[in-house]
């Protein structure tokens, strides 16, 4: 099986600050990690390879330092990595990101399955998976919590729903996004880390992936961010102090005062 994993490098905290003038994230000085949901995608790809043989390729679109995220995937056991990096990609919204990823994937040749995370912890839109599938013209299934079977050019998966799960069958190739229930990501291995240490990450530019520059980056992004703001706090709040016991007593007293208990 040829499996492609989409990996995004994200800041290591959900509390990144926002530049009030440009309404964009201030990423300077914040350490980067692999988007946590993408770790499940990597793990699932590695498990499928262990069962069915083949190869796992991790792809990311990002600045040159996103190569670090790719090296981490190699430390976990990923076979090959591709960094899509070009000034022309900067400022991409989910649409332009997905276009870039789809063009990159097309360049990689035949594949059976693309796995992405459910969503990125920074952008949080959960749009890149479905959009990329659409641009590749392949089936898309979201929120996979289990791959039941893969055989004969088909797969059966369990899609997580609010009130249970659906069992879905799809032809291959397809693109799925995975939820954390699907597995427990492994730690890196020493051999993987040593391989990663000496790895030169392959970088593909806009030209390499035959991209139409009008569809890339800011220029190719139909989304315009009008305003980004933290929602105003609602209602009156009071923060209690003292030992846990004292705080519990206060809560109980207040609830009684307001006849809530």
């Amino acid at each position, binding site marked *: 099986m040829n499996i492609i994993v989409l990996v995004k490098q994200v800041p290591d905290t959900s509390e990144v600050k926002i530049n009030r003038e440009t309404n964009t994230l201030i990423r300077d000085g914040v350490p980067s990690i692999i988007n946590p949901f993408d770790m499940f995608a990597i793990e699932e790809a590695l498990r499928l390879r262990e069962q069915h043989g083949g190869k796992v390729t991790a792809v990311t679109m990002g600045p040159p330092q996103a190569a670090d995220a790719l090296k981490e995937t190699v430390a976990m056991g990923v076979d090959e990595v591709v960094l899509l990096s070009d000034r022309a990609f900067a400022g991409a919204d989910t649409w332009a990101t997905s276009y870039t990823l789809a063009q990159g994937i097309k360049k990689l040749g035949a594949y059976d399955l693309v796995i992405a995370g459910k969503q990125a912890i920074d952008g949080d839109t959960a749009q890149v998976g479905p959009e990329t599938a659409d641009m590749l013209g392949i089936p898309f299934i979201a929120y996979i919590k289990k791959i039941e079977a893969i055989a004969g050019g088909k797969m059966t998966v369990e899609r997580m729903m609010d009130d249970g799960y659906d069992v879905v069958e799809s032809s291959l190739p397809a693109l799925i996004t995975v939820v954390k229930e699907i597995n427990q990501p*492994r*730690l*890196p*291995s*020493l*051999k*993987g*880390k*040593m391989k990663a*240490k000496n790895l030169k990450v392959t970088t593909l530019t806009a030209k390499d992936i035959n991209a139409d520059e009008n569809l890339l980056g800011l220029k190719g992004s139909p989304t315009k961010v009008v305003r980004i703001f933290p929602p105003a706090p609602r209602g009156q709040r009071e923060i209690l102090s003292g030992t846990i016991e004292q705080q519990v007593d206060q809560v109980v007293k207040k609830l009684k005062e307001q006849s809530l208990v």
Partner: protein
Amino acid sequence: MDYLLTEDQIMIRDLARQIAVEKIVPVRAELDEQNKFPTDIMKAMAQADLFGIYIPEEYGGLGKKSFELYIAIEEISKACLGVSTSYAANALGTYPILLHGSDAQKKKYLPNIASGKHLAAFGLTEANAGSDASGVQTTAKLEGNEYVLNGTKQWITNGGEAQIYTVIAITDKSKGARGASCFIVEKGTPGFTFGKKENKMGIRASSTTELIFNNCRIPKENLIAREGMGFIVAMKTLDCSRAGVGAQGVGVAQGAIDECIKFAKGRVQFGQPITSFQAIQHMLADMQTQTEAARALVYSAARMMDSGAKDFSRASAMAKLFATDTGMKVTTDAVQIMGGSGYMKEYPVEKMMRDAKILQIYEGTNQIQRNVIALDMIKEASRQK
């Protein structure tokens, strides 16, 4: 203290530490309480390649040496000596093959050990052969193309869990210590069973059982080295692994210090944190200084071994002796600094103190280490005369 570790050594340390923190610390109390072998943790360690550190690359390992192995043992021991004993005893069981095995034996067994697919164990001790290993009564008799083993090994770490056992048995009683030989026995061989799992004071996550041989037939090829080499194989094996027990002592000592200083900073008596009392400060200073000295001794023994020195019995005995006495002392002091809390199972130091005790006993008691060191000193002195 900076030991000028290489990039690869730092990588090994950090990954072992990550496993310790993420996989071991959260479950160590439960493993201890339930006497439970850490199967999942061993799997995670296998996947991370920790079992292959000291095994040559041609047999699927990373081709590093004792130093790198000890770094990993130290990190795991900070979190749990039960887990680190299971891990270190695997190396103990592997050394006879690694040091004295034939190429065919290495090819057959080492790759599965390096990948962590198979765990190994070392069987020397018996009811009548503890400190005095020459008391071994298990026999191996050559019959055609097979050796037939009879006898019982006692207190064997990884018993029941391991796939591969390196076992010392007597092939020629008339030759005394020169009549012992070392064999590889695989789990599942007819006539090879396990006694009950021991209920221990500490390192309860590790499995300790009897190995029972009852007309157990193994192929002749499973003899390591030659007949009569058994004790030499055993002694060389222990020379290599003993300093690793020292690394366990360093690890548990550091683990206890890290826990108790965290606690002490927050514990207020007489209106001030107990760390403001000089009596506590001096204990902490001694604990860290002793631990650092132990670490330096273990690391120097490892570097001596790895440099290709021929005889390092004294160095590894000193490393084991000092670092494990330190492990016992420092964990005891950590409980003392934490007072009643230190004695409670809510905190990890009571387990560390119970666990640390074994380090002064197994792989040669610390009395025996002193014998080894002193005899070597005397031998040297009489050579110099």
